[in-house]
């Protein structure tokens, strides 16, 4: 929000430093020196803070692995006929299922 208690003095400080010829890096370094690394808008890519960047892709990779195993488990298993069931009856069921599934949206 423009004009909030932090924004106004921060903008003035940046303007003053720019007027004195400070580079962008020098301005950022000055803010980090006075306020700590929380002055940065994103976590620095160092040490523990790497976690911030690596966890989202790690989660996607983990999800993909889980989907792989789920698909492997859920693929149609081999089936053996129930003892005593007429193969013709089973075939009729299968055909009926095929017909029903074909009419799905």
């Amino acid at each position, binding site marked *: *929000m423009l*004009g909030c208690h932090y924004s106004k003095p921060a903008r003035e400080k940046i303007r003053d430093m720019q007027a004195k010829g400070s580079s962008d890096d020098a301005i950022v370094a000055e803010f980090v020196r006075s306020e700590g690394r929380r002055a940065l808008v994103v976590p620095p890519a160092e040490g523990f803070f790497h976690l911030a960047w690596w966890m989202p892709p790690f989660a996607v990779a983990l999800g993909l692995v889980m989907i792989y195993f789920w698909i492997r488990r859920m693929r149609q298993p081999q089936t053996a006929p*129930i003892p005593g069931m007429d193969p013709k009856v089973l075939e009729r069921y299968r055909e009926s*299922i095929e017909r029903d599934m074909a009419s799905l949206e």
Partner: protein
Amino acid sequence: MENVGALAIILSFCLAVYSVLASLAGGWKKREFLIISGERAVYAIWGLLTFASAYLVYALQTDDFRLAYVAGHSNKTMPAIYKFTAWWGGQEGSLLLWSWILSCYAAVVVFQNRRKFRFMMPYVTATLMIVQAFFLLLISFPLTPFEVLAVGKEITGVADGRGLNPLLQYWTMAIHPPTLYLGYVGFVVPFAFAMGSLITRAPGDAWIHTTRRWTLVTWLFQSCGILLGAGWAYAVLGWGGYWGWDPVENASLLPWITGTAFLHSVMMQEKKGMMKVWNMVLISATFFLCILGTALTRSGIVQSVHAFAQSPISRYFSTFLFAALAVVIYLILDRLDYLKSESQLESVLSRESSFLFNNLILLASCFSILWGSLFPVISEAVTGEKISVDAPFFNRVNIPIGLFLLLLTGVGPLIAWRRSSLESLKKAFLWPTVAGLLTAAILFGFGVRHLYALMSFGLCAFVLGTISSEFWKGASAIAAKTQQNIFAAMVELTHRNTRRYGGYIVHVAIVIIFIGFTGAAFNKDATVEVAVNDSFKIGRYELKVQSLKNGENQHYRWWHAPIEVHQDGQLAGVMTPEQREYLGVERQGASIVSIRRRLHEDLYLNFAGMTAGGQKAVIQAYVFPLVTWIWIGFFALIAGTLICLVPSKVKYQFPKTRVVGQVVRSGKEQGVAKS
């Protein structure tokens, strides 16, 4: 009389506890009178909370500053509408609103289902009332909205209240919080049914059919709440954005994402009896994220411009969350046999698989947003150093995820249930792919070099292509059969399967919203200090300050800067950004931005302040291409969701593939499959 509101809340709390115990005991021991008395307690709670809410609103309207809440969030000069919205303008009042909405939902659920699901309803009621009791506990003791500063008709301590934060005195803010709460609270209902079915091992998917409309309506409210909040941020906060990835904004997005994933994956359960555990996890996650979102806004755990003042309720929320989480995990693990899949996945190239990837991407987005929002807290706990995670982090992580999701929005409808052949996929994808590539190539030819923007526009064209082809194929068949024109046939097609084609319209809305988001790649901004008659340029506009005016009315002081907008040497209009200082105990300031809205771009001016002893105005100017499409997409989303809620003209049957026979694994291990 000053204490009747507090009395109503405490009585409601006692009744909620009673309802939980009576419903559980009645359900367990099969005692109908206990079940019915538990349900009647729900109606009584609704009555009491309606009274308490009405009493608070009356106190706000009549400037009853004997109540600390009224003194803290209202004042004599506020318009009546904002005295009403002060109900949810503060921590205590907003929790009362949360509780009241839940009591309304609970009363409707109990009334609607009083003769259905008799075996399940006691547990549904108990779940609803556990949540109700928790929120009533908060407003009964640590955060009562009826704290009394003085007793009796005369009050001398407080002459006037502090007033509502001026930033909240805006029309969308009048409806944004209740709309969002209708979403947050609404997700408790499908969660309660999910728990009811889990506890009773209810056969079939009755809870899903029963709660589908609830979930959809709740999702709609949540969507509206989020977009109204975005509209408010854009028009009021003056920083020129509609989404800042603030932790509280993120908190509202998280249950929306898991709710969206649930709405998709639940179709797998309805149509194929698959993913039952996953759906249970998703609806539970949605519920917990609603509670977490409510906690983040109120506990001071994360820093946010939207949060209420810090309060001591974080331990109440964490206790409730951990206890509820433990119960839900136990129930799911204990009833895995009940949640077994009824059919098998037949091919990786199937609609089922596309739903899986859709769920993965949605959850990846949800996780990254939650992770980014909580990382400052985690970092402080681990390293002792609190760092910032702001918009650039979320954009970097979520833009690729969003684009992939957009791709799936187009891919999903073209893949058949069960299995698709490569040949049919080639045929289905040919023209949409051509449309996407052509769009990207044309934009590239016109000089667009922003990679994400090219990808986004290309994917938008691809998705519109796939959805259009779906409508075209269906409508052409109907038109040929019934001799209707193609538009009438499209209406007929939609009416025949409102859920499917309404869903496509929601997808179109998402595409339109993405077009608006993508415009941000071409934003321009400038901050200038200008005196009267000074000019400056931004984009294709030349802006000239006409005058600087100030004045005062009964509510606030104001400063105007009428600015002429010239385009191609012609006067295109005058814009008047304004600054206000509200009169009241606290002189709070606010910017009223001026926005010239067009379909292709908005010109946005913010009067940020005065310098040079009042001789110069600080003006922030922005050009936002395509942003209006976000709001157009919002209306399309409402329309699509409402169509989904209309009953279909044709009742579709969804046969399930069941495994007949015995499963043979590794030639040795054998298990009996369902038949």
